[in-house]
């Protein structure tokens, strides 16, 4: 079975003053159905990695195969198409449109990918049912709790049946109760076969994943499952 993600020798350098090596020689393979968490302190390169995985940014060197297809040499239009059709995003700040109701926000996930208009509403309802938000179809995001908003955002990512769900600090803005609800949802999705990459600086969130990868100063190291208990909590605001 082809890997969903195969990063080989990926580096990303920001030409600021002084230049920042946000990612250095990163190698990562994610198989279908994996639930991978990437944990690391602030400024360690987590968002940079997610942007590259999400085809929102290009690495300076190395290759990125998504579902067996080399992506770093594709043109912008094709990468955009691939992003819309094969990837789902969940952001820390939800990125819901405040003036559109829950249903419309979810249907947005299907707007550009050629999904049939006729049954878009049904598919949005199904996605919302899946995240347990079927009872809030016509609420504005402003009237939802943080956890509910994130579940709507997850439904928006799921409507396009993505090969990979990329989550950047999905629980960063949530309290412990809402965090637990979102993490339970991730467990359900994983059980249903969704491939998940969750970026977090929160060890408790990270521990729920099947595979854990640590990032520090732009370098990745896989955390062996057996070593889980001995890993010390990261120091907040750790070294860059």
């Amino acid at each position, binding site marked *: 079975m082809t890997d969903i993600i195969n990063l080989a020798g990926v580096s990303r350098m920001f030409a600021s003053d002084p230049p920042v090596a946000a990612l250095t020689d990163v190698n990562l393979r994610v198989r279908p159905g994996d639930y991978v968490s990437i944990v690391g302190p602030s400024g360690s390169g987590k968002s940079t990695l997610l*942007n590259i995985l999400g085809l929102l940014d290009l690495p300076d060197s190395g290759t990125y195969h998504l579902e067996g297809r080399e992506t770093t040499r594709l043109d912008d239009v094709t990468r*955009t198409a691939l992003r819309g059709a094969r990837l789902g*995003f969940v952001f820390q700040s939800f990125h819901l449109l405040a003036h559109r109701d829950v249903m*419309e926000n979810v249907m947005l996930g299907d*707007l550009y*990918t050629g999904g*049939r208009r006729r049954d878009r509403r049904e598919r949005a309802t199904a996605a919302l049912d899946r995240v347990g938000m079927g009872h809030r179809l016509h609420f504005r995001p402003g009237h939802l709790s943080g956890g509910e908003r994130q579940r709507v955002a997850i439904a*928006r990512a799921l409507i*396009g049946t993505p090969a990979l769900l990329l989550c950047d600090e999905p629980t960063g803005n949530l309290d412990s109760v809402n965090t637990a609800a979102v993490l339970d949802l991730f467990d359900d999705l994983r059980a249903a076969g969704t491939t998940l990459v969750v970026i977090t600086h929160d060890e408790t969130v990270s521990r729920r994943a099947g595979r854990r990868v640590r990032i520090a100063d732009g370098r990745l190291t896989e955390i062996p499952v057996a070593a889980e208990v001995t890993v010390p909590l990261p120091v907040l605001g750790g070294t860059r």
Partner: protein
Amino acid sequence: MIGRRRLSGIPISRLDARDLAGEALAGIGVRPARTALTVLATVLGIGTLVTTLGVSATAGNQIAGRFDAVTATEVTVDVAVPASPDSPPAVRWEALDDLSRLNGVTAVAAYAKTAAGSEASVRANTVRDPERVLDRALPVAGSTATLPDAARTGIALGRFFDAGHIARRDRVAVLGAQAAEQLGLSRVDNQPAVFVAGTPFVVIGILAPIGRADQQILAGSVIVPFTTGDETLHLGPLATVVITTALGAAPLIAQQAPAALSPNDPAVVQVHAPPDPAGLRTGVADDVSGLLLILGVVSLVVGALGIANVTLVTVIERTAEIGLRRALGARRRHIAAQFLLESTAVGLLGGIAGASTGIVAVVVISVARDWTPVLDVRLAAGAPLAGALVGLLAGLYPALRAARMQPVDALRGPA
């Protein structure tokens, strides 16, 4: 729906036109008050233009309406009196032949006439009523035989004189209907005579009412052959040329008449032709509405700048939304199309509101002035389109800015 496939085998992102329209409308609807304020200048501009053009078309129509088809075929030429009685006449009677050959001329006549204030004393010999004043001071015209046609009149009784009477210098006279009444003549079969300044003339006909408004004086005149008139009454050289033309030919004939009548000195003749209705209409447009038109265009430019400015602000406010849409698979052109459509729709709204306001204004002004409002369909339909065009142009730069944003930067939200 099967998308277009590229070499990579991935169907490229697409956006249904209905979805695009829905997104754009939702975008405008987010801030109705701001949208309303944004379109105000456009409403003002389009409204001013529609009102100005509509009112000038309406006013032009009123002026044009006063010229019926008949007046537009009448030309009169006044010939200056020669400086001294001995100098050669400015226009010779023979010149009328040249004039009548011009294309578009249907009838030409000319006459010499007693000056106002020195009318001739005219008396009829049939009056038996002693109570009646016998002598009348009446204008006398020495005319060519073509006068009834040129002056749009006919013969009520008897006949008009002909070329033979003119050549023989016969002492015959035709009376205008009013003149005949004043002289107490109601029949010509008994060959009544009138004495003009003491000279007897045989009355051979009485004119019907005069059709031409500018020749009503003939109704009260005694008309004699110009040869006889010059010889016995010293009426002098021809002073007035009366021309009727084919429909629409009057302005052209008015232009050509001086050269045909007086090739050596066209300036001695003065032509009276109906004003060109088209010229009048543009004249009104030029004078009354030139300034308003400029005002309307300026308002439109202000409107365009307003829409451009607000769209740019909107684009920056919605940076994160742009990033999200790119993450969801929107291409640059989908982003650009959405903001272009939003600004175009705002412009269209302004155009519709402006056109409606303008049309109401035209109707109100027309009613106030007792005019029939003239509403050009092209104007009513074109105005909203002009508004849309303003919106489209105004949206170009903001849409380009939105499309150029990098998804990664955009997702971070406005700086």
